[in-house]
């Protein structure tokens, strides 16, 4: 330890100014407009007349230091040593002259980077840890992302859609991927209740907080065993008890799987931000390529492509045609699981005689 430098605490992150490209620094707060040039490049024009060109590439988010170094080297070579990451884990390179774009893109593509993701298309998939790092995962995240994006890569690199389609993946209902407001999102779900290991509950868990963790009040004390018991018919397999008490493992190789929720968004344009709603309650975990899941995603995307008007997001398209039509157009089955029985169930019931025949 002796050769370690002096630690500091509570210094916070470095100031962002240090990391800004000179053109960005100079024109900070002075940007006037932007134009999208190609699916992977855009220009922002300042009131001063300055321009900054942004080139975007996809990243798997799980990055080795090798790749980070490579990207840094590209930035050094082409961009004065500046780069950034987007809020959806893409990487952005900057150049200050139009002529510098082509060589940069060429080098990126030669090195295998996927350029694109700007404008009305599918950008990167917000996602989480999955089997790579989380004890709570009901599915993997990185693998699902890879499987889906391999299938949809054209919508990143070239093809246009009616509007952005934001895809997200969360490996359990804790939803670190904030899947709940995405155009199309996958979430790992369980189908069976936790298994209680009474000995370990007694030793490692706090019974009151375990009981309090259950959204449906399915858990009650089992005083004789100094443990807890679960009213099985009340459990909807959320796994929150397992988050609080490790002695209640819930994962199950055959019954864990993937649910698909759709139609959410966060932008305020046109319509208010919306929660995603359940499209498919469960599809099996079928790694490495989850064909059932990618199929369902494509069904939804294709129905959107066929039906949406220009600038409509997935949820706006569904809002216009109605959910009953959504199930018809995607040919996804409507099941008892789609009928809400949670906190705000009542607000989802159809309190009108005006609906479409399907």
């Amino acid at each position, binding site marked *: 330890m002796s050769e370690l430098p002096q630690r500091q605490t509570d210094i916070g992150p470095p100031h962002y100014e240090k990391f800004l490209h000179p053109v960005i620094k100079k024109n900070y707060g002075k940007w006037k407009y932007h134009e999208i040039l190609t699916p992977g490049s855009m220009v922002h024009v300042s009131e001063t007349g300055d321009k900054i060109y942004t080139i975007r590439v996809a990243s798997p988010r799980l990055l080795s230091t090798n790749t980070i170094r490579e990207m840094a080297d590209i930035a050094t070579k082409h961009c004065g040593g500046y780069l950034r990451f987007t*809020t959806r884990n893409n990487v952005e390179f900057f150049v200050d002259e139009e002529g510098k774009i082509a060589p940069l893109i060429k080098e990126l593509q030669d090195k295998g980077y996927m350029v694109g993701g700007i404008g009305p298309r599918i950008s990167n998939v917000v996602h989480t840890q999955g089997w790579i790092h989380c004890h709570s995962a009901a599915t993997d995240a990185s693998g699902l992302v890879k499987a889906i994006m391999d299938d949809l890569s054209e919508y990143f690199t070239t093809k246009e859609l009616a509007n952005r389609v934001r895809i997200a993946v969360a490996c359990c209902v804790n939803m670190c991927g904030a899947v709940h407001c995405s155009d199309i999102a996958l979430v790992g779900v369980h189908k069976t209740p936790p298994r209680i290991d009474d000995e370990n509950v007694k030793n490692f868990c706090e019974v009151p907080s375990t009981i309090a963790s259950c959204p449906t009040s399915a858990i009650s004390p089992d005083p004789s065993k100094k443990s807890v018991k679960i009213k099985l018919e009340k459990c909807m397999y959320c796994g929150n008890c397992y988050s609080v008490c490790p002695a209640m493992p819930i994962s199950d190789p055959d019954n864990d799987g993937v649910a698909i929720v759709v139609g959410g968004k966060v932008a305020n344009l046109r319509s208010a931000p919306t929660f995603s709603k359940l499209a498919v309650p469960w599809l099996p975990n079928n790694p490495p390529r989850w064909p059932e899941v990618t199929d369902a995603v494509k069904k939804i995307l294709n129905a959107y492509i066929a039906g949406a008007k220009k600038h409509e997001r997935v949820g706006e398209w569904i809002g216009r045609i109605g959910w009953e039509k959504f199930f018809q157009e995607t040919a996804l089955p409507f099941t008892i699981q789609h009928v809400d029985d949670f906190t705000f169930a009542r607000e989802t019931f159809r309190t009108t005689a005006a609906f479409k025949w399907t």
Partner: protein
Amino acid sequence: MSKKYATPLLDELKKGAFPSFVKEMEMAAERSDMAADLLGLVELSYKEKVTHWKHGGIVGVRGYGGGVIGRYSDIPDKFPGVAHFHTVRVNSPSGFYYTSDAIKEICDIWDKYGSGLTNVHGSTGDLVLLGTRTESLEPIFAELSSRGWDLGGSGSAMRTPSCCVGKSRCEWANIDSMAITNDITHHFQDEMHRPAFPYKFKFKVAGCAVDCIASIARADMSIIGTWKGDIRIDQTEVKNCETKGMNIQTEVIDMCPTGCMQWDGKQLKIDNSNCNRCMNCIARMPKALRPGTEQGATLLLGSKAPIVTGALMSWVIVPFIKMEPPYEEFYELVGKIWEWWDENGKNRERIGELIERLSFPRFLKEVGLEPVAAMVKEPRRDPFFFWSEEDIIKK
């Protein structure tokens, strides 16, 4: 180099157009035993369709209560390289900007002490260093902090705030989202590093209602830039949009949610008193339209993931606030909110859930905010409401 384990299932995911996380793991595995064993462990998960991680224990660096997520494999004998596999959350700089040198310096540290694998960035916005051993945590922290980096949040603490690119590269930013984020982060170092809240608390800052940081969905406090006054119109550029092939009627006028725009082929008119500042028209015609010039933010509170009572989106608590240094009014309000949360919140109860449990009117009263119609989509439905002593007529 020959691989430590056969990974036929993961190998499949090296194919295809999208960049492969498996290749990343393999690159790291060439130098790191931890990464090599990670490959083996994940392959097993792919085969067995279950995770092989256990609940994390409490690990961290001296004096901090967070910033590290402890993680242990449930089959350490089989994969000793990932017996410990903790992650270190490095607080990213506002806007996720880096220089090549700075980010390579982090790589150096990580190659020395960790698996060589990262997430840039985690969902909250930290630069996540993925996989190290307990005994390496102090050295990593010393190396990082001595070079000007600090850890982000975890546990029942303020989490690493994050923001959109804002004024640095976006013409629509009504607030300086990066400066605000940086200020909040430094202002609340103690709240971030020493968990003392009922549960986590997240700030996210968006320069405008486009909300490119998804703040309304996943921040206990969402700070969203906006303006007062009129949208600035450049009529020549409006006309140009049409010349270039845009259908102004269907793409702009008909899509305006408030119906407050008119276009007669020559002049675009906006009834700004009925505009709700949704940003659609501006996004359609970035050269022609710009937000008004009196800038500030709307503060919204409460979003979070679905557990326990269902997902929440943040809702308006302050329709308009100037967000300029030293942000006194803002910090005072945050202080009051945290105090109220602290007094009333149960363990593992987010601020949004607490307000839902105790009621929004009570929150407003006790935190001292005036009720205004902007706070609700619609007023209450059923005529059941409370009165205070002073409202009662006594004769």
